[in-house]
């Protein structure tokens, strides 16, 4: 039987602490933000749709042209004419489909698309080719439209829908997800350890409560809060579209799932139901870990840290290692979307119960380990006084308050523990980098050998075909008589094969030779030859018409940008010029990521971002990776949590602030003392972390290449000038800067940015009694400020906003300036804005702390 009394008691405590209110507010805020994003993007849907229809437009045109060309010779052929009529109908239906889209007749679109699909199917049935759809895309679209028509459902965009069921799916993808689990842990994960810290566990220990009831009560309380949050999300997904211009939609809307031997569709309500079940299973498992860590660890920071480490580490390792992708691994069940959309990964949907079983087991283990009876800790050893107990000679009270703040941090030991955690994270992150780099390097040679073998086989096959065709041509020549029409056709085909395949063989032979040379150079460390080989390959994809670049980007006709190709080539030229070692991407082609390559599908975009990311394990490159993969958010978040809580730890139940107030100190002095020490500690820990990253990379591998090229985006006004010395591609201009300079500028901006955020959080702490509220409010202000500052609406004035500079890497490489078309955005202006912003917030804090509204008691 569930221990109802403890469960209800936990719910009551959470209610009194307003945790339900906070969860509800966060849930509603997130749903609202997503709805607004979708609502404002409604006009973009058309653009997206037309881009996705572009391949069909090309295919329809190509087919039409083919038929028109052949009609001259085949107008007597009835089968051909029927096929031609179908091709014309295809063009007409395509036009109708486009028209329905253009006029936003979403109810009519499935019908129009279906009519078009039927003509395509007929075309294929009659032996034609259609390349407008990838792989099974045609049949998937056909089946989907069939369901839409059956249930009289309109067309809906899967990214920007504002109809309730699809909108709910989008919301779930964002916020009923792994990051949300992390936030739940931060908000709810300290319940048990707080009982120990506040000693309220002693109250419980004098009641007839077994540890089993205590733990189960806590566990169920936390899960109840999550269920409550889900309920609020669910209701908000109904209410917000209803009140703000969305549509009701249908819960029968089809969602595609991939089977082992094909695909199928499931109604969206089942999809959402499975998502919730999986999420609750993951939450159960995660909070059972929270209980376990609360049992063995003493302080809140350690419990939260190890839980989050388990969560993200478990997910990362499971994604990386195939051996861990097993149904017995509880982290396997955190890939909600993959498990729903690829049911063969589970096999049996009943296996969803596994994370629940793990949760139960871990709670039982926790209860076994848990001690409720705490004996008073007496007789602890003496602690030496600071400076042997001497009194400071200075009379400067601000200095004395600051020194006292520092001493508090030292005694509390949190900074020490926290620094150890950061260093462990750095080591862990580096281990992952080393693994990835070594994996890429180890895969490179076999990969190259495999592609050389592949091309050699192709060459062999083609040569055989050429041989056969040449033999046929010789035979036909030898005949001497006037060739018949079929013999003419045969001769034509044979000749085209000899010519075409002959070209291909020649190209492939060059390729094989190049790759072999590249492989030998790689093994010998002859980086110049390696880079030259990569340049040659990139040029082929860029310039050679025999190489088809059909990357599914938003460009008309698809394909990668001119900018990308030029930058990729010039980067390798720079590497040759400065004699730098090759650095691998996650994929075989050494492209350089640029802002001008946007993919239609977010999944493709994500894959592209991953594939073009460079990986290396030198000290400098580790720091570069830290800044460019947003890992710095983790450090920033931890610093705000530790040092930004400011006044909150001294208010509320612990009134230590009033002790300070009963000394000859002004409130503003107390605030400044805290601020100064927090900022100094922030700066020190940040610098220490960066230096440690360089050190660990240097010791393990090498320092790195100061001159490694970093792409820098030039503004149009710079690129168009007469004395421009950079490179000018179709999309824009660029040049390269040293990695050393990039890291120094990014590091300086990052440091200034984090100090700015700490200043904000310290001011926010004047208003709240709870550290988590301070953290969340600071995050909201930071994210909100960044989003507003980097929106195009305010692009002409955002150089004054410190929030613009929070993404340090994008400032140091000129990206933000180009995207916002603002010449005044630079590293220097960023440092100034952040400094001024920090001072402004500190002044606000000083003024508020002096005011009569500032409550200390």
């Amino acid at each position, binding site marked *: 039987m569930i221990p109802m009394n403890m469960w209800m008691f936990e719910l009551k405590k959470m209610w009194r602490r307003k945790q339900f209110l906070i969860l509800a507010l966060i849930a509603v805020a997130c749903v609202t933000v997503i709805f607004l994003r979708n609502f404002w993007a409604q006009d973009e849907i058309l653009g997206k749709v037309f881009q996705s229809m572009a391949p069909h437009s090309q295919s329809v045109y190509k087919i039409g042209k083919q038929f028109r060309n052949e009609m001259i010779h085949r107008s007597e052929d009835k089968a051909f004419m029927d096929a031609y009529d179908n091709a014309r109908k295809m063009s007409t239906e395509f036009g109708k489909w486009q028209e329905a889209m253009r006029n936003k007749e979403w109810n009519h679109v499935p019908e129009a698309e279906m009519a078009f699909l039927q003509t395509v199917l007929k075309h294929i049935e009659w032996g034609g080719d259609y390349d407008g759809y990838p792989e099974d895309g045609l049949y998937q679209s056909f089946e989907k439209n069939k369901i839409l028509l059956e249930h009289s459902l309109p067309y809906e965009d899967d990214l920007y829908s504002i109809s309730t069921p699809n909108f709910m799916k989008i919301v779930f993808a964002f916020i009923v997800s792994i990051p949300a689990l992390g936030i739940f842990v931060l908000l709810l994960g300290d319940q048990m350890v707080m009982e120990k810290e506040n000693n309220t566990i002693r109250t419980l220990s004098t009641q007839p409560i077994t540890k089993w009831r205590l733990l189960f009560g806590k566990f169920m309380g936390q899960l109840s809060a999550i269920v409550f949050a889900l309920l609020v999300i669910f209701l908000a997904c109904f209410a917000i579209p209803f009140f703000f211009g969305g549509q009701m939609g249908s819960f029968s809307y089809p969602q595609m799932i991939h089977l082992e031997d094909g695909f199928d569709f499931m109604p969206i309500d089942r999809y959402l139901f499975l998502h919730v079940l999986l999420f609750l299973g993951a939450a159960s498992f995660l909070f059972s870990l929270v209980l376990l860590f609360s049992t063995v660890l003493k302080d809140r920071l350690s419990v939260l840290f190890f839980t989050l480490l388990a969560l993200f580490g478990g997910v990362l390792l499971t994604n990386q290692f195939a051996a861990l992708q097993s149904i017995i691994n509880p982290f396997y069940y955190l890939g909600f979307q993959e498990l729903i959309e690829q049911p063969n990964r589970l096999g049996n949907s009943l296996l969803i119960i596994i994370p629940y079983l793990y949760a139960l087991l871990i709670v039982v283990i926790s209860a076994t380990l848990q001690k409720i009876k705490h004996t008073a800790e007496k007789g602890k050893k003496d602690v030496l006084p600071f400076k042997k107990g001497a009194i400071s000679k200075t009379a400067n009270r601000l200095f004395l308050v600051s020194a006292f703040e520092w001493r508090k941090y030292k005694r509390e*030991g949190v900074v020490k523990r926290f620094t150890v955690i950061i260093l462990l994270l750095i080591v862990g992150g580096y281990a992952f980098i080393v693994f990835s780099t070594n994996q890429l390097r180890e895969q490179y040679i076999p990969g190259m050998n495999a592609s050389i073998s592949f091309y050699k086989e192709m060459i062999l096959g083609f040569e055989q075909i050429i041989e056969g065709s040449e033999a046929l041509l010789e035979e036909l020549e030898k005949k001497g008589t006037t060739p018949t029409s079929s013999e003419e056709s045969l001769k034509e085909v044979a000749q085209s094969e000899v010519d075409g395949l002959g070209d291909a063989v020649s190209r492939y032979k060059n390729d094989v030779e190049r790759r072999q040379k590249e492989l030998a150079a790689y093994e010998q460390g002859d980086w110049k030859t390696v880079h030259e080989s990569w340049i040659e390959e990139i040029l082929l994809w860029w310039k050679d018409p025999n190489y088809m670049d059909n990357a599914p980007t938003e460009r008309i006709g698809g394909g990668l940008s001119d900018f990308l190709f030029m930058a990729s080539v010039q980067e390798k030229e720079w590497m040759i010029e400065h004699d730098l070692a090759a650095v691998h991407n996650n994929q075989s082609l050494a492209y350089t990521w640029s802002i001008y390559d946007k993919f239609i599908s977010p999944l493709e975009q994500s894959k592209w971002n991953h594939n073009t990311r460079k990986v290396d394990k030198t000290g400098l490159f580790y720091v570069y990776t830290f800044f460019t993969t947003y890992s710095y958010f983790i450090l920033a978040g931890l610093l705000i949590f530790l040092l930004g809580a400011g006044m909150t730890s001294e208010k509320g139940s612990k009134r230590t602030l009033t002790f300070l107030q009963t000394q000859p*100190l002004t409130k503003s002095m107390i605030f400044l003392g805290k601020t100064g020490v927090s900022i100094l500690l922030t700066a020190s820990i940040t610098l220490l972390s960066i230096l440690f990253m360089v050190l660990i990379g240097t010791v393990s591998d090498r320092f790195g290449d100061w001159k490694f090229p970093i792409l820098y985006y030039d503004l149009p006004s710079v690129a168009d000038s007469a004395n421009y010395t950079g490179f000018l591609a179709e999309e824009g201009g660029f040049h390269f800067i040293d990695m050393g300079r990039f890291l120094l500028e990014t590091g300086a901006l990052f440091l200034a940015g984090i100090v700015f955020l700490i200043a904000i959080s310290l001011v926010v702490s004047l208003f709240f009694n709870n550290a988590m509220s301070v953290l969340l409010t600071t995050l909201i202000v930071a994210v909100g400020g960044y989003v507003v500052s980097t929106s195009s609406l305010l692009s002409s004035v955002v150089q004054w906003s410190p929030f613009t500079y929070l993404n340090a890497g994008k400032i140091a490489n000129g990206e933000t300036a180009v995207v916002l078309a603002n010449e005044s955005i630079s590293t220097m202006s960023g440092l100034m804005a952040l400094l001024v912003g920090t001072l402004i917030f500190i002044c606000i804090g000083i003024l508020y702390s002096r005011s009569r509204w500032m409550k200390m008691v």
Partner: protein
Amino acid sequence: MILSVNNIYKSYGKEQVLKGITFEINQPQIIALVGPNGSGKSTLLNIITNLLPADKGEVKILGKSNRDPNIFREIAFMQDNTVLYDYLTGYDHLQFIGNIQGLSKKQLLDSAERIGITGYLNKKVKNYSLGMKQHLLLAMAVVNRPKLLILDEPLNGLDPTSAIRVRDLLLALREEGTTILLSSHNLAEIDRVTSTILFLKKGSLIQEDVSQFERIRYQFKVDDVVKAERALIAAGIPVEIVDDQLRMYRQDVSIDLILQTLEQEKITIDDIEKKVLGSEERYRKIFADTPQQSTKSIKV
């Protein structure tokens, strides 16, 4: 003028906790602030020390506004133990005060010795018992030899020995010229040290000089209580029978006359009980109409 509290008003929402509190202290003495739980004692002390703003009114300490943080060089406020940092040692707290107030290390150690906390000064506060924390708070309050010492429930959690020690310390401080304003529930101890009691009733202050209501009561257990009462009344001695015993007050009678009268009537005295009455009786009279518990029904 040491402390001047003038027309202080304070409300929490609709509930007015303090209504026009006015009093002055002009010479060194020990004054107690007494009232039921929730009557506003701590609120008043927090307002006096500017930890809470008053809705209306003014406080002056040693001729200066209580808003000047420098007054804490001359006054001290001992609060409850939630103001202590659990992870700091007792000496860390004293050292901070010493640094801010420009005291010497000797002064810190003398204060610690005077209170008797030297033995655990270098242990972290989280390892202290309630009494030890109270001692530390007291040491922190007296270390700078304040002219005005404000104490919020100083005797909480103290064993009898410590309570006596604190009482003696307060009396010594008064002799040294320190004015002490304390709030306490320990009426017996208040009687021993204070000269003036401020009763806080329904937001208003009733000031009483202790000497005005201190009385000694006698109770006699005799073999014939009715006969004894008749005889004593006839002798002009005011007496009453309570619980089958004779009760009378020292201020009203002469003990010798009582004994003489009872002897003459050949009445045997089995037992005599003497009791010193003071603030407790006065407290009862003042707060007789104040309900001990709220009569509002609450939902559970």
